[in-house]
């Protein structure tokens, strides 16, 4: 055995012991570094690019009122000075040197950061990500300067009447812990945010065992795992934040309520929301939820025919948004002032029929499953975007949930759909938001407040 071979075997052995392959499906490979960092690789060489993404189990669900909006502010601060990059100008310049397309997003239960660049820059991209995720400086002057940028985002959101409708509904729906669902947060919190609060978030949530590194594109999982270990393997493990600071569960709604938002809009919009299942507590109901949504969305469904083909609504959609801390079920619909009363009654009449044995056919049930499965194929087409999807599921439900998603959808039966409907829709209180113009408001009778 040559010296080189011996060296090679030692390195290979070390590497093998540092990571363990847990999962491989859809060209998705998952390993876990010793420090607890999940490394998820999606191989797809359709174009010679690589996307590097970090997902952190953070977001508004971790925010009490005094921190509301700071996960989002933190996301902005990520793209600024760190121990290797002196300021945001240099951050952006380094990004251009790598040919990077970049962004970050904050939602209820995850924050993600992603860079896409030519596949040959994988090492440099990982090193750039490593410095940004592990060594942010939160310089006071950069923090102060970023505040009006974030409030500018509020200004834009609040200029959109549909955002105002969503806020009005969410304040009622999540009445006890609204901050935990308010991703943008409160202006006052942003305007008073300081270095210490940013550091608190960093120390609490930005640790490898609360994060996942995802890499997609024209890459090989072996190469990524090796680089991840080399570059991010020394990121120190931290105390599980959800043991010490567990986010509260949202208490059930006690009553149904109606809220009205008046803005000069061209249609009457209804946003009817309920508490749906929490994915880690009732995963079976989440599969049933998705299948039911796709049954109702088919243009041959009774739901669509009775509400849209009848001319009562111009649009209707029932959806469930999968989350760990109570995902909302939403019926979003549009109509006119003239048809408002009849349309609302018709929607609730349809809900009552969801559990009727002939409400949907076996073919519609199978078609819904086919559509969900084929949508997965469509979403896998774009490796740079698909990695966001995989990251979302990792954060919200765990990667295994996603890897077994299609198989579990296939198992959904009528009993499971009926269970979901009865528990979360038919027998559940709701919040109904109505977005309407002042002129149309004159034409219709809408009783605001608690539904008797």
């Amino acid at each position, binding site marked *: 055995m040559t010296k080189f071979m011996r060296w090679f075997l030692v390195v290979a052995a070390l590497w093998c012991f540092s990571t363990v392959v847990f999962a491989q499906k859809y060209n998705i490979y998952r390993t876990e570094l010793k420090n607890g960092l999940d490394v998820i690789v999606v191989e797809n*060489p*359709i*174009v010679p*690019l690589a996307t590097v993404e970090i997902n952190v189990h953070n977001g508004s669900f971790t925010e009490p009122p005094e921190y509301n909006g700071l996960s989002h502010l933190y996301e902005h601060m990520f793209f600024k000075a760190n121990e290797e990059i002196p300021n*945001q*100008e240099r951050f*952006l*310049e380094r990004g*251009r*040197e*790598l*040919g*990077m*397309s970049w962004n970050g997003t904050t939602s209820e239960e995850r924050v993600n950061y992603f860079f*896409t*660049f*030519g596949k040959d820059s994988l090492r440099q991209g990982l090193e750039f990500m490593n410095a940004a995720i592990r060594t942010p400086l939160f310089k006071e002057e950069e923090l102060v*300067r*970023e*505040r*009006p*940028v*974030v409030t*500018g*985002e509020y*200004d*834009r959101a*609040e*200029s*959109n*009447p*549909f955002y105002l409708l969503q806020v009005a509904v969410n304040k009622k729906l999540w009445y006890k812990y609204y901050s935990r669902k308010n991703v943008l947060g409160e202006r006052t919190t942003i305007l008073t945010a300081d270095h210490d609060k940013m550091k608190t978030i960093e120390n609490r949530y930005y640790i490898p065992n609360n994060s996942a590194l995802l890499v997609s594109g024209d890459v090989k999982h072996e190469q990524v795992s090796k680089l991840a270990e080399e570059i991010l393997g020394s990121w120190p493990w931290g105390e599980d934040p959800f043991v010490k600071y567990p986010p509260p569960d949202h208490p059930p709604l006690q009553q149904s309520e109606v809220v009205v938002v008046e*803005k*000069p*809009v*061209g*249609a009457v919009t209804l946003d009817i929301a309920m508490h749906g299942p929490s994915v880690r507590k009732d995963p079976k109901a989440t599969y049933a939820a998705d299948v039911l949504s796709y049954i109702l969305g*088919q*243009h*041959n469904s009774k739901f669509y025919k009775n509400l*849209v*083909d009848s*001319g009562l609504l*111009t649009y209707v959609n029932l959806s469930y948004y999968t989350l760990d801390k109570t995902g909302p079920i939403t019926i979003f619909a*549009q109509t006119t002032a003239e048809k408002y009363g009849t349309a609302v009654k018709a929607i609730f009449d349809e809900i009552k029929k969801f559990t009727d044995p002939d409400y949907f056919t076996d*073919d519609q049930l*199978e*078609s*819904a499953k*086919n*559509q969900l*499965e*084929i949508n997965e*194929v*469509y979403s*896998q*087409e774009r*490796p*740079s*975007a698909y990695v966001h999807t995989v990251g979302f599921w990792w954060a919200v439900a765990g990667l295994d949930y996603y890897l077994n998603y299609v198989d579990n959808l296939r198992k959904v039966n009528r009993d499971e759909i009926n269970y979901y409907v009865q528990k979360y829709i038919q027998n559940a209180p709701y919040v109904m938001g109505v977005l309407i113009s002042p002129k149309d408001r004159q034409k219709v009778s809408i009783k605001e407040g608690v539904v008797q």
Partner: protein
Amino acid sequence: MRKPSTVLMRLFAVVALIVVLFLAPSRAMAFTEEFDVNGLKVILKRNPGNEVVAASLYIRGGVLNLTPATAGIEPLLFDVAVKGTKNYPKEVINAELSRMGTQINGNASKDYSSVNLRCIKPNFDKSWDIFADVLLNPTLDPKEVDLSRSQILTGLRQRRDNPDSYLRDMGDSLFYEGHPYALDPSGTEESVSKISIDQMRQYLKGNLVTSKLVLVVVGDVEEADLQKKVTASFGDLPVGGYTPQFPAKVEHANAGLHTVAQQLPTNYIIGYFSAPSIRDADYYPMSMATSILQQRVWEEVRTKRNLSYAPAAFFQGSLANCANLYVTAVQPDTTIKVMFAEVKRLQTQPISAKELRDKITVFLTSYYLQNETNAAQAAFLARYELAGLGWQASEMFVQNMKKVTSEDVKRVAQQYIKNIQFAVIGDPMKIDQKLFTSM
């Protein structure tokens, strides 16, 4: 002594490596082919990489095919056409599309309109059959037409609900005033409420002539199979005598401003200026110039001065092309002054070799990002074909971007960024008209 076969194999490997290295930039071209079916140009990009098949049938002409009275006919027609055909009545087409997860939809832009199919390979045969029937034999049931019409009218009535969509409509109207592109392919409440079924049939009869159509398919599809399908479906269409027409450039002699007062937390601002189309050699340098401007306004307005969350410069892609300055700001005058200073800097100071080199690398990434899906690749090929350049020209995108020089960027910035037409929604008291019309 080495065995001759080993030597040959090594030689072959070396030659193969050289071929791969040198031909790598035109890898896509090698998989793309074209053929003609009775005057219908078919472009097939064979992509064995995934299960998805994307097909788009393009009708050339765009808004040049429309009048003020027929504006909006395509969205209405395409929407109704998917609701029932001669061979696939409503219930059947709905059931089949749901069962297969197949998507068929229409699109109408100023440059062209299209009907698009996306499905997975095992469902391509049946999906194609429906796709062709939607185009050739739509039922256009009056009840369905009324239903689609009311849905589209609701959408049109909501265009002012969101300040961004309202702003774009205002900007388009101001910039394209007096030009054929002033027509909006989505139509108006007035036009859509009056379009008749006869007009829709006439539209199909007049436009489904093979000389006016281009079909682009991307996916794991054999040429012989596609040729058979196209011949069976579209082989009997009349050829017609269509000659491609392209719209004139838009040129404004003066700057312009249109402000709409609305109580909002911020002010929405968009500026339009003329830009070269893809048919013009300046397309690439101007595309680069706008991208550099985007980067600079972002840095100056957002990063350094914190005046806005969303400053931007966009390069559009139409055949009567324009580019935009865009921002939402509570201090519009201060913000626009900074943006204008960046325009001046671009027009007077050459960009460094490093900045240009970096920008080309960024363009390369965005080029590939735009070509990840089969549908996006189909659209990219079609864009060049519909512009009269031939789909092969799309393969030169990267090379053309790499040829752009610092001098080119300065020249096109001077030549095109002028006489800006601004649309503003917000507080008119905060808008200095003289400032806004100074460039």
